[in-house]
């Protein structure tokens, strides 16, 4: 075992030397990655500079119905706000970047699946980026702020006082941008980890993994030894490992994908995080033992009036735990995306004050700084979600009285060894 570990060490050193020697490649790649998000902002203020073009654009938008009734002379700040809020939302199409001057969008449409008196399936190209009305089997649909509303042939969308259309909304099961990203990520994770599993099966548990598996295996072991084992307990952690690993790698991959300039924001979508937290909630409740329910409804060891006071609080606590999980992930990722895009927007907002070169330099530096922090946050959020999930599951499954003499007598050697505490 020791030899094996040593061998692995040497091998990794050798490999890392081989890969990271290409300093130039690394540097230029980093520069490219940093610069690439700028594409998504390209051309976004061109129109406000050219007054005539702007007027033309406004007229064009008004022609397309009331949807853009606020399309007055939009200042750069307003446009940036629109851009950011648009990015944070889910969409029915995949647009990588668009040219406002020529009104061109570069991306691809996605299938729209509606349930409205029968299944309606059509391509989102019919919406023409929200500018035209899609027709399917005699029904008319229109996009309004990323949501599909039922309308008539003229495309009437009367708004109420909160600026929401009064039209009916069909049930929307479309393959949206987030769904595509989620499916792709799942496929990626499935392929990576099935190859890891295959490698294990072929070579046995003690062999050195090859290729990318060498990156994945320590991560799996990290989740097992640092997250699942200490929180759930030696006796029962195995049952929950599949869920914890899935959640960890799914969230991490999606977070990292959100940092790329593809414009994907899956973990910053509250529906996704609600679903993930719901899984944790259901798993916790269904694997809970008698003691857990006892602690919720009839807390042992406190006087009866206190028990009556504590029960509602504990029941509330059952729901606030997953709620905080979902809010944390959602808000962290949303905040991260907003900050990154806002810092890129410095180029357009501070153009006059800092000159073009200065604003680009400032924005680049700040964006790089925040992007590096976001890399950490991407991992940290995946870690925290998994950690707290396993903590909640651990609370529900642990047997408090018999736990100690059980795990400490024949547990793993490195866990029972308490570090020597110096007397101060």
């Amino acid at each position: 075992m020791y030899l094996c570990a040593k061998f692995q060490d040497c091998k990794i050193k050798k490999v890392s030397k081989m890969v990271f020697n290409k300093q130039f490649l690394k540097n230029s790649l980093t520069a490219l990655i940093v610069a690439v998000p700028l594409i998504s902002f390209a051309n976004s203020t061109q129109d406000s500079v050219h007054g005539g073009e702007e007027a033309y654009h406004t007229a064009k938008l008004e022609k397309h119905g009331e949807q853009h009734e606020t399309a007055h002379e939009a200042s750069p700040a307003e446009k940036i706000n629109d851009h950011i809020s648009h990015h944070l939302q889910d969409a029915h199409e995949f647009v990588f970047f668009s040219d406002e001057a020529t009104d061109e969008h570069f991306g691809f449409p996605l299938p729209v699946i509606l349930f409205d008196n029968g299944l309606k399936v059509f391509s989102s190209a019919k919406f023409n980026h929200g500018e035209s009305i899609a027709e399917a089997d005699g029904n008319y649909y229109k996009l309004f702020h990323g949501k599909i509303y039922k309308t008539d042939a003229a495309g009437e969308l009367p708004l109420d006082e909160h600026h929401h259309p009064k039209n009916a909304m069909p049930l929307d099961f479309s393959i949206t941008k987030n769904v595509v990203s989620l499916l792709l990520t799942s496929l990626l994770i499935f392929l990576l980890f099935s190859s890891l599993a295959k490698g294990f099966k072929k070579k046995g548990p003690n062999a050195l993994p090859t290729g990318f598996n060498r990156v994945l295996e320590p991560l799996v072991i990290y989740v097992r030894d640092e997250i699942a084992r200490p929180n759930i307990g030696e006796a029962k952690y195995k049952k929950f490992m599949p869920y914890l690993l899935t959640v960890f790698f799914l969230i991490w991959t999606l977070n990292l994908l959100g940092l790329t300039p593809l414009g994907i924001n899956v973990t910053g979508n509250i529906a996704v995080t609600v679903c993930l937290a719901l899984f944790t909630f259901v798993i916790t409740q269904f694997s809970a033992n008698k003691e857990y329910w006892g602690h919720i409804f009839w807390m042992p060891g406190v006087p009866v009036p206190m028990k009556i006071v504590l029960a509602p609080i504990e029941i509330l606590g059952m729901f606030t735990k997953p709620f905080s999980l979902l809010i944390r992930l959602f808000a962290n990722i949303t905040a991260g995306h907003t900050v990154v895009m806002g810092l890129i927007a410095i180029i357009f907002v501070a153009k006059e004050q800092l000159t073009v070169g200065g604003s680009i330099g400032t924005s680049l530096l700040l964006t790089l700084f925040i992007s590096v922090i976001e890399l950490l946050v991407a991992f940290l959020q995946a870690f925290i979600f998994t950690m707290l999930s396993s903590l909640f599951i651990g609370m529900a499954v642990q047997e408090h009285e018999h736990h100690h003499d059980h795990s400490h007598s024949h547990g793993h050697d490195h866990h029972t060894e308490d570090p020597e505490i110096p007397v101060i």
Partner: protein
Amino acid sequence: MEIPNLVGAGLIVIGAGVGLGKIGGSAMDAIARQPEAAGKIQTAMIIIGALLEGLAFGALILGKN
């Protein structure tokens, strides 16, 4: 009198900042006293930090509407 949401957001951030500072400071103290237990202290610190952060973000989001 109507208090703007931004004031609430600022108060939340101040509160969260004080809390995070206390967590971080205490963790540093603890690690300085017992460097062997650094790993465990860090994990606990991150968990408590995350709980605090969840609260702060929840308040920010609820306050935004």
